[in-house]
Every structure is written in C-alpha cells, then in structure tokens.
C-alpha cells in the first residue's frame, strides 16, 4: 500500500537531486520499484504519455503519479515537481555574488553525465522487461532513425510504434 507522505518525499527527493525533466527518472525508478509502488510498465506508460502531451517533458511524473496512485498521486507529483524550480531564486542570489565558478559548472556537468549514463541503463531495463526480440529491436532503430531527422513529430513516431506493436503481437 502506498503511503502518501513517503511517496511525496520520494518524488520530491528525485527532483531535488537532479536537473532537467528526465533527470529524476533513475532515482524514482530505483526507489519506487524497490517498494513495489510502481512497475516497469508504469514507467514505460508514463514516459510515453509525457512525450505526447504538451508542456515540459518533466510532466511525465504527473502521469506516473496518476497511474500508480490515482488523483492523489497526480496532485502529489505536481507539487513535488513544482517546488524544486523555486530554488532558482536562491541560485540567482548566490550566482550574483560568486559568479559562474568552474567548480560549480564542473559539478553540474558531472552530475548530468552520470544521470545520462544511468538513464541508458534504465532504458535497457525497460526494453528487457517489454520483451526483447527482432520486432522491438527494429522499432527502436526505426524511431531513433526517424527521430534523428527531426522532421517526424513525436506523436506520429509513437503512433507508428503502436501500429507496429499491434501488427507484430
């Protein structure tokens, strides 16, 4: 059973210790799967909805909240992702005093690179959970190739994936 307070803290923690809309994914993935409060499938579904829906890509967390804990989960997720960006006001104060120090830039860069590395592992986990075969491998390559061109809208890409899935399985 999901405890709302702990659930909220996990959501908040993941956003507090990461940057960008998808940076919180590795931490959330670890924490929620460990407690059995979300499944790989929930993550896959939430990411897909987040890609299609408007707004910052970070809104996928709201979708995850809804899928795992209903309306309460969605509201908790909305609050949890809205709070950390407020810290920009504190950052501005410090930044105005100390300027753009290379150590700070280095810290953020190292943190971001680690998140990307872990993100790749999470993606691999999603693939394995979903069933790894020639069909799914082809879809990955296809969406990567079409994505690189930058001309196919994300919605169309995911719709093509869905059609391929219905055709294959």
């Amino acid at each position, binding site marked *: 059973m999901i405890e709302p307070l702990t659930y909220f803290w996990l959501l908040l923690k993941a956003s507090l210790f990461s*940057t*960008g*809309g*998808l940076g*919180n994914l590795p*931490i959330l993935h*670890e924490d929620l799967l460990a407690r059995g409060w979300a499944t790989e499938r929930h993550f*896959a579904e939430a990411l*897909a*909805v*987040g890609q*299609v*829906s*408007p*707004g910052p890509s*970070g809104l996928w967390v*709201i*979708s995850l909240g*809804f*899928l795992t804990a209903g309306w309460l989960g969605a509201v908790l997720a*909305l609050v949890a*992702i809205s709070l950390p*960006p*407020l*810290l*920009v006001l504190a950052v*501005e104060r410090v*930044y105005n005093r100390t300027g*753009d*120090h*290379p*150590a*700070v830039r280095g810290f*953020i*860069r*190292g943190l*971001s*690179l*680690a*998140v990307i590395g*872990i993100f790749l592992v999470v*993606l691999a986990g*999603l693939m394995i959970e*979903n*069933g790894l075969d020639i069909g799914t*491998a082809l*879809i*990955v390559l*296809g*969406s990567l190739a079409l*994505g*690189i061109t930058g001309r196919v809208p994300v919605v169309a*890409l*995911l719709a093509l*994936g869905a059609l*391929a*899935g*219905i055709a*294959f*399985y």
Partner: protein
Amino acid sequence: MYTSTGSTGPASPVLEDGPEHPKQASAWLLLRVWLELGIQSFGGGTATQMLIYRAFVERRRWITPDEFTRSWAMVHLTPGINLLALTVLIGWKLRGVIGVALSLAGLLLPSVSITLLMTAIYSGVRNQPLVQAGLRGVVPATVGLGLLMSWQLARPLLAASRREGRGSLALGTLLLTGSAVASLLGTPVILLIAVAGLIAGFHGWRSTSASGDDA
C-alpha cells in the same frame, strides 16, 4: 507598511518599491501571456524555450537578451525542470511573488490538464489486448527517442569538456560510462550522481587554479 488616511493631507502619493519592469507587465497580462505559452507548449522544452524568448524578449521587451541568457545559465544550476525554473525567474523579475504564482499557473494549467486527461483516458483502456499490443510497440519507440535524447543531452556536455582539453574529455566519458556500469552493479543512484558531480567539480576547480599558475 500601513497608510493612515487623512493625517498627511489630501494629495500624498503612496510610494512603493516595486520590481524594475512593472510598467507594462500587469498581473492579468502576465497570466495571459503564460497561458498562451502553456497552450502552445507542444514539442517539449527547447521549442517552448524559444516561444518564451519570443514572447518576453522580442515581442514585449520585458526582459533584455542578456538577462535571458543569464537566466538560462542559472536555470541549469537549479534542481528540477529547467523550463519551470525559467518560468519562476521571469515571473519573479516582472512581478515578484505574485508573478511567480501567475507564471507557473499559466504555463502549467493547460499542459497539466491535458497530461492528466490523456493519462485518465489511457488508464481506462490500458488492460485491453489491443492496447497492450500497441504498448509493446510504443515502449521500444520511446526507448529509441530516449537514446536520441541522451545523445542530445550528452553532446554539449562532452563538447564543452573537449574544449577544455583531452583530460576533461576523458573524465567526462569516464563519468558517463562509469556511472552506467556502477548502476548496473547496483550502486545507489543518489550516491553515484553526487560522487560524479564532486569529481567533476573538483576537476573544474583544480584546472582553474592550475591555469592561473601557468599564466
């Protein structure tokens, strides 16, 4: 602060120290501009960032280009969603606390409602066989996009490392691959992220003091 009426004569103006650009950015106009941005914000962060630039810098001139660039740098030092941090900062510059609330509400109201609506509709049909088959195809498509996104995020970081020299580039590549391997081995994510940040931060700090000595 309180004003007592009648004690200081008829025509005493109430002086307030407000934000620096209050002239045209009234509360309602600010909310309207952000709502418009929220409705148009299909296509993720970069597209929306461009829309924000056009609306606040080019069209209304409430923010100067320099201010925007500085804001964008600070946004990347802030935890959480970059676009929301930018929204908070612009709202604060224009109208203080109320500006922050209105800007966030304007940007989020349309997009959050649509996200919720889509999730609710989806969760109503998620157990039908046809939807499950479709999802088996959608997941790899999302993974493909995720790979592309990882590359797009990593490229500028590695490019910046390369400009600093071969050592920085090697360190950057090592942090990227090393954290992937460490995470496979079961290292807690927060620990990994913190250590990677500290290593790169220390490297940045040391390289400046080193170049200071050389010069």
